[in-house]
């Protein structure tokens, strides 16, 4: 390994000579400076390589030809090498992105930049406490200079506050160092740590001062107002360097002094770290300015890393490797993502900015496959193992808030609402792109390292990348490609799966393929749609493939991620997507806790303790949109692109059903689980939850004028039946659940596809603006008609079988009240179904819609396909029921049995073929009778309504079916007041208000910030005394 002292010599030599070199031209100075930074990066990477793969050991380098304790030592170990590489990378990229301004500013800017980064490298490398102070000062004084280099007034204001904070921190540090020297007789870190002198109260106080200085530099809440102001106001490149590189160096400094710290110190670090994570994120929740928001997020992230380092020391979470993986992973994730985001805040919105901003934002909030995801998983895993529930709850709740505001910003960026005043249109995206690339690379590497090596699990991301590269091409090229990828995935993945999973693969992958096909309904590239829809489909497949807690959660989060982006892609998708993601992530966190607690959702997994299963079930129910946590559902389903809505409702919701079934299957595998299930109240509760979801979904659906909202609420209701059926938990119940799920997939697919055609042709989603489309779009009409017959459960289509099974199993179980409510809910469902036909296809055609054509082939084709399956399984129920009953197997309470084509239960029997034949015969006879007797029919002409001198605008006056079920509101309206919406809104409002109150601390007055710092230190000291 090359002696790092040469790098210091190079940095200083270049910096010292820059004023002279600059006389030869700024280009030369810039080149020299970049070369120096690149040399640091190269050295860091070479150390990393040598230590990881080259068999090298951590090495100490002496200065001035002497060794410790006489001289200052530098150390290159794995952590140092990683930190050095990371901060040099960030520094180099930030410097490159600042090149235009560095070219036009005084040479002092470039000189301070070099000094700042050299100072940070020194902080990372030195093993001497006083030398650490010198490097802290180099990096902070150079940072003060750097902040001022381009002469922004705001940056100057913030820089002064920074200087005050830095001055107080240096005083604290010096006092700490000198007393450590007094008590140990050493300045060398390792020798001081091994000295007995620090044991007593005096030594502990000396260490406290040192620690307090580092803590202040690490920007803990509430002593961090100065830092947030600096992030807010400084040049984005400088903010990136401070948030990324400087924070890394300081964190390594904290890590370095760990051997000096006692338990009381560690508790202080852990406590203030957690407090910063929570408070920083809360304060960020209200923030509109992008850079200030990133500042709050930086504060929070650093707090988390700090807390992890200290918690590991306190509770022994997992040793050094664990710290590298979690604290290191979180830090790396933070520094790459945050620097990239800071750099992006000054770029004009464009496709590239959005894509990169999205990538970095998603990485920041810890979604797969980025390093933060793996780090958070390991962290929570270790905390679960130690039973630290309060800490877990804090971390996850604050993470959720962070995801909320970071992605709110991304949403507005994606929708082109970025603050125009901050833009610098011609700046290049080179640096952020490289950072995003590094993040992705590290993410994949950590995943590989964590044992996720099944290529098919990674396939969603690979497909997303591939299709994104081809995104300029027409959808007619990409869609077949995506379908082929899905087919290949299915071919490779499904043969190894069990019956249950194969059954679901049909709906998830097959459905995905159908909706990919339907995306060809519009020409053009339809950018973004194919990569996301393709990847989402494969992520559903990955959920089925998962064979461990981690891989299950990985696939689950991938699914959440891609579907969030799909919803966001919708024209009005910004808000629904945010709400979708908040609930999706909240649910995912619950599921994660369940999985880590031992809830096994993959074949052969053990069933964990009851609480784990309950948490997992709760997480899954959020994903299913159960009543109370359904708030995200109508918006997400309604505002996504039309084929995406179908995909979400028909296919993706089945992934939730699958998870619930897998959970219950895992439960019933072990005796303890069976016992828990047999206790009854849990299942009965689940049943009632499903039932309430079914009822309220239907109730909400009937008042909608928006066709897609109607379908969205309907989906929620229908999934409620599935949950109810599952809760019955015997052979009949399971069969019913699977049957209902498949049935829902078929008819909801048809409905959404048909409605997609209607909306595409008519150009509106409001039912009162449609009418009489039966003649223009007969195929769509047929599709909707069949679908609602199947949905409402009247013969002859398969829906009848589903309802028959449901009532049979409910009554068999003795759940009479449930059966009655279910019946009532079905009746309500019939109301909105009727309306679909009535308002859209029947009645008077609108004059403006005279030229409407049938839906494009890309929509009718998959509908025809689904229709054919529906007819087949209706006529021959055994096609569907045989595999289902084979999957269900011999569960307790086997009541269903086939005799030929006749399915019988204690309550009677159902013969699908026969009922099809009978119905067909009856209808045929009626039809013939009509043909014979009603030959006098004539069509009614459009009423020519003329209003005197005014044209009606309100829908009520122009459509007979507007507010069709309004009269029912008097009877049922009290049920549909949106209580859950109001609950979640006020919960969100409470969090936001809390954040708003917290950030009032940051008054903008540098002196107040200084007061915060001194008070913070004094209070910490008092707390340490108590501990």
């Amino acid at each position, binding site marked *: 390994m090359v002696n790092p002292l040469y790098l210091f010599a190079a940095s200083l030599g270049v910096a010292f000579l820059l004023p002279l070199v600059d006389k030869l031209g700024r280009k030369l100075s810039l080149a020299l400076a970049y070369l120096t930074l690149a040399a640091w990066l190269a050295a860091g990477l070479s150390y990393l390589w040598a230590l990881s793969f080259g068999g090298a050991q951590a090495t100490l380098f002496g200065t001035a030809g002497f060794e410790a304790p006489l001289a200052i030592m530098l150390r290159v170990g794995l952590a140092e090498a990683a930190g050095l590489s990371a901060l040099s990378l960030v520094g180099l990229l930030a410097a490159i992105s600042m090149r235009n301004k560095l070219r036009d500013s005084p040479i002092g800017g470039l000189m301070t930049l070099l000094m700042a980064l050299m100072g940070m490298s020194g902080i990372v490398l030195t093993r001497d406490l006083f030398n650490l102070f010198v490097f802290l000062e180099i990096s902070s004084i150079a940072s003060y200079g750097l902040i001022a280099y381009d002469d922004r007034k705001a940056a100057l204001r913030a820089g002064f506050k920074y200087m005050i904070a830095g001055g107080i921190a240096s005083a604290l540090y010096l006092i700490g160092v000198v007393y450590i020297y007094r008590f140990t007789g050493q300045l060398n870190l390792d020798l001081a740590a091994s000295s007995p002198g620090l044991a007593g109260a005096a030594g502990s106080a000396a260490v406290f001062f040192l620690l307090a200085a580092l803590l202040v530099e690490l920007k803990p809440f509430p002593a961090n107002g100065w830092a947030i102001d600096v992030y807010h106001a400084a040049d984005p490149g400088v903010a990136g360097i401070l948030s990324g590189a400087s924070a890394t160096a300081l964190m390594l400094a904290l890590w370095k002094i760990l051997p000096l710290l006692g338990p009381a110190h560690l508790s202080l670090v852990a406590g203030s770290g957690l407090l910063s994570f929570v408070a920083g994120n809360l304060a960020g929740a209200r923030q509109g300015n992008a850079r200030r928001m990133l500042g709050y997020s930086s504060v929070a992230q650093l707090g988390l890393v700090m807390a992890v380092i200290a918690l590991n020391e306190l509770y022994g979470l997992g040793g050094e490797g664990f710290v590298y993986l979690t604290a290191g992973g979180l830090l790396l994730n933070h520094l790459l993502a945050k620097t990239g985001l800071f750099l992006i805040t000054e770029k004009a919105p464009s496709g590239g900015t959005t894509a990169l901003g999205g990538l970095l934002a998603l990485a920041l909030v810890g979604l797969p496959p980025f390093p933060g995801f793996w780090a958070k998983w390991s962290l929570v895993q270790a905390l679960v193992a130690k039973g630290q529930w309060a800490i877990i709850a804090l971390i996850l709740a604050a993470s959720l808030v962070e995801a909320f505001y970071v992605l709110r910003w991304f949403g507005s960026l994606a929708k082109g609402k970025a603050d125009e005043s901050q833009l610098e249109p011609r700046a290049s995206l080179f640096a952020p792109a490289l950072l995003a690339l590094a993040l992705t690379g590290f993410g994949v590497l950590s995943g590989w390292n964590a044992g996720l090596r099944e290529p098919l699990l990674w396939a969603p991301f690979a497909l997303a990348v591939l299709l994104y590269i081809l995104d300029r091409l027409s959808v007619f090229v990409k869609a077949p490609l995506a379908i082929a990828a899905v087919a290949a995935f299915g071919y490779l993945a499904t043969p190894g799966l069990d019956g249950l999973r194969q059954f679901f693969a049909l709906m998830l992958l097959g459905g995905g393929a159908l909706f990919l096909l339907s995306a060809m309904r519009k020409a053009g590239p339809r950018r973004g749609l194919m990569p996301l829809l393709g990847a989402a489909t494969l992520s559903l497949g990955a959920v089925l493939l998962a064979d461990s807690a981690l891989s299950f959660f990985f696939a689950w989060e991938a699914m959440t991620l891609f579907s969030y982006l799909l919803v966001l892609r919708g024209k009005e998708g910004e808000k629904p997507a945010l709400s979708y993601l908040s609930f999706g992530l909240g649910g995912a966190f619950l599921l994660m806790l369940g999985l880590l607690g031992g809830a096994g959702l993959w074949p052969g997994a053990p069933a964990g303790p009851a609480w784990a299963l309950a948490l997992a079930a709760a997480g899954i129910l959020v994903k299913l949109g159960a009543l109370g946590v359904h708030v995200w559902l109508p918006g997400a389903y309604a505002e996504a692109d039309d084929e995406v809505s179908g995909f979400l409702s028909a296919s993706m919701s089945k992934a939730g059903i699958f998870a619930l079934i897998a959970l219950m299957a895992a439960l019933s595998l072990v005796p303890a689980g069976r016992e828990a299930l047999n206790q009854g109240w849990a299942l009965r509760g689940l049943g009632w939850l499903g039932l309430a979801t079914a009822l309220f979904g239907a109730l909400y659906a009937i008042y909608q004028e928006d066709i897609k909202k109607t379908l969205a609420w309907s989906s929620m209701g229908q999934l409620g039946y599935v949950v109810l059926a599952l809760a019955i938990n015997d052979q009949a119940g399971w069969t019913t659940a699977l049957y209902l799920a498949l049935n829902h997939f078929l008819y909801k697919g048809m409905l959404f596809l048909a409605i997609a055609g209607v909306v595409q042709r008519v150009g509106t989603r409001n039912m009162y603006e449609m009418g009489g489309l039966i003649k223009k779009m007969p195929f769509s009409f047929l599709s909707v008609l069949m679908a609602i017959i199947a949905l409402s459960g009247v013969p002859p289509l398969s829906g009848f079988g589903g309802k028959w099974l449901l009532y049979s199993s409910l009554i068999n179980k003795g759940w009479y009240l449930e059966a009655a409510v279910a019946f009532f809910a079905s009746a309500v469902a019939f109301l909105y179904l009727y309306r679909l036909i009535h308002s859209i296809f029947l009645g008077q055609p609108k004059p403006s819609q005279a030229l409407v054509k049938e839906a494009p082939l890309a929509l009718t084709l998959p509908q025809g396909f689904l229709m054919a399956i529906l007819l087949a399984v209706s006529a021959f129920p055994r096609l569907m029921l045989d595999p289902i009953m084979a999957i269900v197997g011999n569960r307790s309470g086997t009541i269903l049995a086939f005799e030929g084509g006749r399915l019988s239960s204690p309550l009677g029997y159902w013969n699908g073929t026969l009922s099809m034949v009978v119905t067909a015969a009856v209808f045929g006879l009626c039809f013939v009778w009509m043909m014979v007797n009603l030959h006098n029919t004539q069509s009614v002409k459009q009423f020519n309504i003329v209003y005197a001198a005014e044209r009606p605008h309100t829908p009520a006056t122009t459509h007979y079916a507007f507010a069709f079920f309004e009269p029912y509101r008097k009877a049922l309206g009290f049920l549909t007041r949106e209580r859950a919406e109001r609950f979640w809104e006020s919960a969100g409002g409470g969090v936001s208000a809390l954040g708003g109150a917290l950030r009032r601390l940051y008054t903008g007055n540098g002196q107040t910030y200084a007061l915060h710092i*001194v008070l913070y230190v004094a209070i910490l000291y008092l707390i340490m005394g108590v501990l």
Partner: protein
Amino acid sequence: MNALEFLAGINPVAASGAALVLVGLWGVLARPNLFKIAIAFTVLETGVNLVILSVGYIRGRTAPILDAASDAATASARMTDPVPQALVLTAIVIGLAVTALMLSYALRLKAAGGGSSIEAYGEEKW
């Protein structure tokens, strides 16, 4: 313990240093004028320097410099601790650097027309 012993235990250099640190800190926290803050910081720094050197204070010992007359072998037994002195040298220079930079900031801010009170520079907040 009687009062005399207590007093003898106190390191007078450290005590005056600590007092100056507090005075400086008070100025930093309570005087809104930018220049006054910088002045308070120099007082604070002087205090810190005294505290650092207090650690090397050994009663009755001389400066760690050999003169030509004295014998190198025995001289070291009469000398005081040189390490804090080396540290203070560094700290003093760094203090000057910070002061100069702080004053430049103050001048630059003032040239932009914001006045000399720190309260006028709170536009970045919340």
